[in-house]
C-alpha cells in the first residue's frame, strides 16, 4: 500500500491510510505552528497503548510538563485531558525519538541514563527493561525503515507542508582532519598531512563531519599540539608566510602587532578582539624577549593553530530578537567549507570585511563563483566518497587468490576514476543529478584501462587518465564504477546484499536493522557449480531473513554484471549472467528490472532517490544529526528547491544556502548573554564554603545557610612540580544561589577556569564566571585550576 502522506508513512505504527477501526475518521491534528500534518489514529493509539499508558503517563509527565522541573527540556508533555494531549504528546515523543546522539535516539539515551548529560530524573528505563524495549520499538519506527514496512524509511520524512522553516541550533563545528590539512595549507603554505594521521572521528549517517560528535579527545589534543608545533616551525622558517612585515628588530612591536592581527584574522577567519590581540602579543613578547622575533612568531602560530577559534568553525551568531543572526564572517566560513572544504579565500574575506555577505543574492553569486574554483572539486568529491561509502576502497579486504589483479595500484586508480567522474558529471555547467547515474563514459588511466579491458582514446590528463565512452550498455554512471562495485562486495565475490544495502541506505535513505540474534547469518561460500543468485536463495526461503533481504538482494542482483572488484562480466561459473532485479518497498519506484542499465534508470528517475540525495547533501552541509525534527521543514524546503530547479546540482546548493539555517540560528534557551547580562537571582543566598584540600575528596556543606552548597574536590592530575584540581559544587537548596568558595591551594595557581578568583595561593576565593555564578536549585557546576608547587 502506498502512503498518501510521507510523514504519516514514517510514523506508520501499524497505520493504514484508512482510519483504524473503520468507524471514526482519523483525527487530523495540527502542528503547533498550524501546519497541516495529519497523524493517523492508529499511530496515536499505538503510542498510547505502548508508551503513554504504561510508561509516560506514570513516570514522565510528572516532571516533563509545562510547569514541571523538566519544562526546559525537549520533552514537554500534557496531562491526559488537556487540549490535544495525545496528539501533542505523540509529537513531542517523536521529536525526541528522531533526535540522535552518536546514532542513538535521545529517547533511548536520556531516560536510560546513557546520555552524556545524564537524565535528571534518574534511570527510568534501563536497557533490558520492557519500557526500554517499548521505547526502542517506537524510536526504530520513527527513525528507520522497519523491514516489514520499508516505506517508513526516512526517505519520506518530509512533512507534507511546512508553514515555518526553523533553522538549526548554534553550533561549533570542529574542523575535520581533511579540512584541517587544507586549511593549514591555505593559511601557512605548509603542505600538511598531519590531519590525515589524526585519530579517526565518529562517522554519523556516513559522514565524518557531524557537529555534535566531533570533539577533541586527549589523543587528538596531543596530535594537534604536535602538528601545530611542526607546522609553526616550518611556516616561520620563511617569516613572510605568516607575517605581513619584516621586523626591524627582534622585538619590533609594531610588526609583531601586524603579524598577530593579520595572521590571526586569517587563522580565526575573523578579526581578533583587542583582548585577543593583547594576549597573543603577550605570548609573543614573552618568547621573543629571550629568543627573538621568529621564535615569538612561531609560538603565536603554534598557539593559534591550537586555539578553539581556529579548530572550530563558530556558527553562533549574535542575538537578534530571540533568534541569532550569523555574522558575515561566519557565513563566509560556511560558504568556503561547504563549497571548497577550506578557509575563505581572499574574495570571501573581502566580502566578509565589507559586511556584504548577508543577502541571498550576494551569497548566491559567491556560490556560483566558488563552484568554479578547484576547491569545489575537492569538496564534492569528498561528499560523494562519503555518501557512497567508498572512502575505504584503499583498504577493503580482498582475497588475493580470487582477485589477483586487484592490486593497490588498481585501487588507487579507481579512486582517481571516481574523482574525475564526479567532476565531469556534477561540476559540469548545467549538471543534473541523473547525469551522475546514467552517464555512459568514464575515465581510466593505463592501469585501469588494462584492468577493465577498455581502450580509451582522447587526450590524457596530467595523471594519465583519458575519457572513454563505455560500450557495454550495462556500464552506466557512478554506481557501476570500480570504486563502488569493489567496495560493496565480499572479499571473494560480488555481493547482492552489500550492493542492495548501499542502494537502500544511501540512495533511498532507508536504514536497515542488523540481523536479529539467534539466526544463522552465514554467508554462502563461493560454489563454482552454482550461480550466486542460487546461493543466496536461502534468504528468500527463510522467513526471518526474508523480511529484510527482499529489500536488498533483488536490487543487488541487478548489479551482477560486475564482479567483486568491479570488472564487467557476462559469464559466471560457465553460465550467462542473470541480472534481473527488482525494487520493492519504495513509495513510488517499485518494479522489476531486466539488467543493470534498467535498474539504474529506475533509480535515476526515482523521486525518492532525488529527495534522498538532497537529504544527503543537507547532512553533509549542515552536519546536524541530532536535530532531525527541528530542521525537518528546512530539509523539506531544500528538497522542494531541488525539484524546482529540475534536479540541478547548482540549484540544490543554492537552495541549501538560501535556507534560513545558512544565515540564522534558533535560540536554544541556554545561551548566556554576551553583553554581560546575568540571570536574575532574586532571593539568592551567598554561601561561603571553606574546604580543606588536604588530600582526597572532601565534602562540606555550606556554613552560612541551613541548606547550602556542597563541594567536592577532585585532584585529577598531579606531577612533580604541579597539580590540577577541580571543585564540584551542587546547590542543595531549593532556591537559586550565587556562590563563593574559599579553597586552600597548596601551591600557586597558574591557570583556572569556570570561575573568577582572588589570590593565587593559600586561601583563594573563587566566584562563578558569568555563566555559572548563579546555581539554580539542584544545579551543579565545577571550577578548576592547575597550580605549580
Amino acid at each position, binding site marked *: 500500500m502506498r502512503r498518501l502522506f510521507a510523514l504519516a508513512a514514517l510514523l506508520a505504527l501499524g497505520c493504514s491510510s484508512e482510519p483504524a477501526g473503520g468507524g471514526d475518521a482519523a483525527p487530523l491534528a495540527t502542528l503547533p505552528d498550524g501546519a497541516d500534518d495529519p497523524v493517523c489514529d492508529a499511530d496515536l493509539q499505538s503510542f498510547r497503548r505502548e508508551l503513554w499508558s504504561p510508561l509516560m503517563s506514570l513516570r514522565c509527565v510528572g516532571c516533563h510538563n509545562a510547569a514541571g522541573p523538566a519544562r526546559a527540556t525537549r520533552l514537554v508533555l500534557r496531562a491526559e485531558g488537556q487540549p490535544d494531549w495525545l496528539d501533542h504528546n505523540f509529537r513531542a515523543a517523536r521529536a525526541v525519538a528522531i533526535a540522535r546522539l552518536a546514532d542513538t535516539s535521545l529517547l533511548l539515551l536520556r531516560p536510560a541514563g546513557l546520555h552524556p548529560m545524564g537524565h535528571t530524573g534518574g534511570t527510568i528505563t534501563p536497557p533490558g527493561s520492557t519500557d526500554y524495549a517499548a521505547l526502542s520499538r517506537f524510536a526504530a519506527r520513527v527513525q528507520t525503515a522497519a523491514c516489514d514496512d520499508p516505506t517508513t524509511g526516512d526517505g519520506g520524512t518530509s512533512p507534507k507542508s511546512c508553514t515555518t522553516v526553523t533553522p538549526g541550533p548554534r553550533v561549533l563545528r570542529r574542523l575535520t582532519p581533511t579540512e584541517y590539512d587544507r586549511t593549514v595549507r591555505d593559511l601557512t603554505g605548509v603542505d600538511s598531512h598531519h590531519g590525515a594521521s589524526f585519530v579517526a572521528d565518529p562517522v554519523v549517517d556516513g559522514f565524518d563531519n557531524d557537529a555534535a560528535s566531533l570533539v577533541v579527545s586527549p589523543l587528538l589534543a596531543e596530535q594537534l599540539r604536535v602538528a601545530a608545533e611542526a607546522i609553526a616551525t616550518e611556516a616561520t622558517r620563511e617569516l613572510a608566510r605568516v607575517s605581513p612585515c619584516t621586523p626591524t628588530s627582534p622585538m619590533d612591536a609594531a610588526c609583531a602587532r601586524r603579524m598577530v592581527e593579520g595572521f590571526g584574522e586569517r587563522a580565526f577567519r575573523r578579526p581578533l578582539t583587542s583582548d585577543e590581540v593583547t594576549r597573543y602579543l603577550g605570548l609573543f613578547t614573552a618568547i621573543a624577549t629571550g629568543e627573538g622575533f621568529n621564535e615569538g612568531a612561531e609560538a603565536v602560530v603554534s598557539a593559534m593553530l591550537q586555539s578553539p577559534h581556529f579548530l572550530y568553525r563558530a556558527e553562533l551568531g549574535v542575538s537578534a530578537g530571540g533568534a541569532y543572526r550569523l555574522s558575515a564572517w561566519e557565513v563566509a566560513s560556511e560558504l568556503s567549507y561547504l563549497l571548497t572544504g577550506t578557509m575563505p579565500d581572499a574574495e570571501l574575506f573581502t566580502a566578509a570585511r565589507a559586511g556584504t555577505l548577508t543577502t541571498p543574492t550576494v551569497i548566491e553569486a559567491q556560490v556560483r563563483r566558488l563552484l568554479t574554483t578547484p576547491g569545489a572539486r575537492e569538496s564534492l568529491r569528498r561528499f560523494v566518497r562519503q555518501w557512497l561509502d567508498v572512502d575505504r576502497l584503499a583498504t577493503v579486504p580482498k582475497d588475493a587468490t580470487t582477485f589477483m589483479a586487484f592490486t593497490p595500484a588498481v585501487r588507487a586508480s579507481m579512486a582517481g576514476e571516481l574523482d574525475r567522474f564526479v567532476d565531469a558529471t556534477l561540476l559540469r555547467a548545467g549538471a543534473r543529478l541523473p547525469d551522475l547515474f546514467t552517464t555512459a563514459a568514464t575515465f581510466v588511466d593505463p592501469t585501469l584501462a588494462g584492468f577493465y579491458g577498455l581502450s580509451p582514446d582522447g587526450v590524457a590528463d596530467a595523471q594519465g587518465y583519458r575519457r572513454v565512452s563505455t560500450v557495454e550498455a550495462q556500464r552506466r554512471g557512478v554506481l557501476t564504477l570500480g570504486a563502488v562495485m569493489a567496495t560493496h562486495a565480499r572479499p571473494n565475490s560480488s555481493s547482492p546484499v552489500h550492493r542492495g544495502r548501499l542502494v537502500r541506505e544511501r540512495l533511498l535513505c532507508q536504514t536497515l536493522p542488523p540481523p536479529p540474534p539467534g539466526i544463522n547469518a552465514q554467508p554462502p561460500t563461493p560454489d563454482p557449480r552454482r550461480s550466486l543468485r542460487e546461493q543466496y536463495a536461502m534468504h528468500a526461503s527463510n522467513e526471518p531473513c526474508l523480511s529484510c533481504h527482499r529489500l536488498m538482494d533483488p536490487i543487488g542482483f541487478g548489479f551482477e554484471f560486475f564482479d567483486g572488484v568491479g570488472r564487467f562480466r557476462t559469464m559466471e561459473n560457465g553460465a550467462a549472467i542473470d541480472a534481473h532485479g527488482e525494487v520493492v518497498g519504495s513509495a513510488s519506484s517499485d518494479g522489476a528490472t531486466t539488467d543493470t542499465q534498467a535498474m539504474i534508470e529506475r533509480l535515476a528517475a526515482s523521486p525518492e532517490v532525488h529527495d534522498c540525495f538532497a537529504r544527503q547533501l543537507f547532512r553533509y552541509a549542515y552536519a546536524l544529526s541530532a536535530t532531525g525534527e527541528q530542521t525537518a521543514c528546512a530539509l523539506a524546503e531544500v528538497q522542494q528547491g531541488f525539484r524546482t530547479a529540475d534536479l540541478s546540482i547548482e540549484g540544490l546548493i543554492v537552495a541549501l544556502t538560501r535556507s534560513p539555517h545558512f544565515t540564522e540560528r534558533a535560540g536554544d534557551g541556554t545561551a548566556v548573554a554576551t553583553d554581560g547580562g546575568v540571570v536574575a537571582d532574586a532571593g539568592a543566598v551567598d554561601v561561603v564554603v571553606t574546604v580543606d584540600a588536604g588530600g582526597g575528596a572532601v565534602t562540606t556543606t555550606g556554613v552560612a545557610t541551613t541548606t547550602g552548597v556542597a563541594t567536592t574536590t577532585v585532584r585529577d*592530575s598531579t606531577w612533580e612540580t604541579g597539580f590540577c584540581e577541580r571543585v564540584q559544587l551542587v546547590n542543595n537548596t531549593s532556591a537559586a544561589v550565587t556562590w563563593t568558595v574559599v579553597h586552600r591551594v597548596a601551591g600557586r595557581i597558574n591557570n583556572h577556569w569556570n570561575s573568577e578568583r582572588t589570590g593565587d595561593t593559600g586561601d583563594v576565593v573563587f566566584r562563578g564566571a558569568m555563566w555559572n555564578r548563579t546555581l539554580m536549585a539542584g544545579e551543579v557546576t565545577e571550577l578548576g585550576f592547575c597550580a605549580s608547587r
Partner: protein
Amino acid sequence: METRIGRRTFMYGSALAAVAAPFLAPFRRASHAGSAMGARRLVLFFSPNGTIHRHWRPTASGSTWSFPAGSVMEPLAAVKRHLVVLDGVDFVGASNHEGGMAAMLTGSGDATSPSGGLSVDQYIARAVGTSSRLSSLELGVQTSAWGGNTQTRMSYSGPGRFVPPDDEPASVYRRLFASMAPVPGMVDVIRSRRQSVLDLVRGDLRDLQSRVGADERRKLDAHLESLRRVEVSLAGPAAPSATCAPPVVTGLDHRANGNFPPVGRSQMQLLLAALSCGATKVASIQWAHTVAPHVFTWLGQGEGHHALSHMGDGNAAGVAQFVQAERWFAEQFAWLVAQMAELPEPGAGGGSMLDHSLVVWAKEMGDSRLHDCLSVPFVLAGGAGGRLATDRYLQLSHMPHQRLLVSLCHAMGMDNPTFGDPSRGAGPLPGLLS
C-alpha cells in the same frame, strides 16, 4: 582521607552533571593499595567476532586441565601456568556485535551507575593512573577504517564518549619517546613555551565557553579536559635505562590489511615499552573491531574474519579457517604474555613484569554464529601482585560480567562493590582473586 560522594546528587540538576560524572570514579583505594598486594598495571587485549565454544574450551578433569590439540587456545600452552581461563561469563541483557561491543568494558553502565558509564580501563585509570604521564594508553590495530562508532570503539570516558585508540605505531612512538634524547638545556625552554601556549589556548576556550549553549559548552569542557591531559604529559618521557628502551618502529602502512600482523607486533612492543618505562599503568590493545572484515591473507585465507565467524558447522572448511584465525590471535596473546614474563618488573619488589600485572583477553560476543553474548570467552594472565592464582580453568555458569569487571578493579587495589549496571550483580567473581 576517604569520602563518599553522593553520586546521585551530582546526577540531578544541570547539564554540567555530565561533566562531573566521569570524575566520580572511586579514587579510594582499598587498604592493600600501594602494598605488595595488588596489580600495578592492567593490560587489555581485545580480538573480535566471538568464538565457537566447541573449538575454544579447554578440557578439564579435576584440577588438571589442558588445551585440546587443534583448538583455538592451544597456542597458549606454553604460557598456561600464567593463565586463568574463564568460562560461563555472560553479558546479561546484551546481544549481537554492537551490543556486545558496547557492554564489554562498560558493564552496561550509564551516567547514573556508580561507574558513570566509563569503561573499566578508564575507570581504573582515573583511580590509579593520575600519577602517570599517560593516565591510560589505548593502542589499536586497524580499528578505524569505518571511523569511530559503537562497533569500532571499546573504551569510554563517559556514556557515549569514546576514547579512541591510536592505530599508528609511529604516532605512538612519538608520543612515548619523541623527546627522549633532547638537546641539553632546551628541555625547560620548550616545556615552558608549551605551557605558555596551553595557557593561552585555555583562555580562548574559556572565552568561547561564555558564548555558547549547554551542548557546545560540554564539547569545550571535553576539550579542556583533553588539554589537561596534554599538560600532564608534557613532563616528558623517562630517560632510557636498563628497563626502559624504545623499540624500533618501521614506517609500515598501518592501514593495509596485509600489514595487520607487523603493525600489531609493533603496537605490542610499544605497549611493553610504555609499561617498562613507567609511562602508564593502564594500557589496551584493540585488534580490529567487531564485524571486522579483515582477511587473514598471511594465513592463506580469502574470506573475511567476520564472515568466517558465522560459518555453520556444515561448512567444515569455513569453520576450520575461523579456528585458524582465532589461533593466530591466541599466538599474539601468548607472545605478549611471554614477553611480560621475560621482562623484569620495573618497579620495586623484583620478579617479572607479569607477576605484578593483570592481562585480560576480552571478546565482545559468545557464540558468533548465534550473535549472542553468553559465555563470552575471557582469558586472564599474570600474578596481579599476588592477587591472582593462575594455571586455572574456572568454569562458571551464567555469571554476569559486571562481576568480572569488579574483580579487575579489585585486582588493581580498588574496592568498588559494583561496576556497570549494578542491578546485574555485585561483588567480584567468586573464587577468582585471593
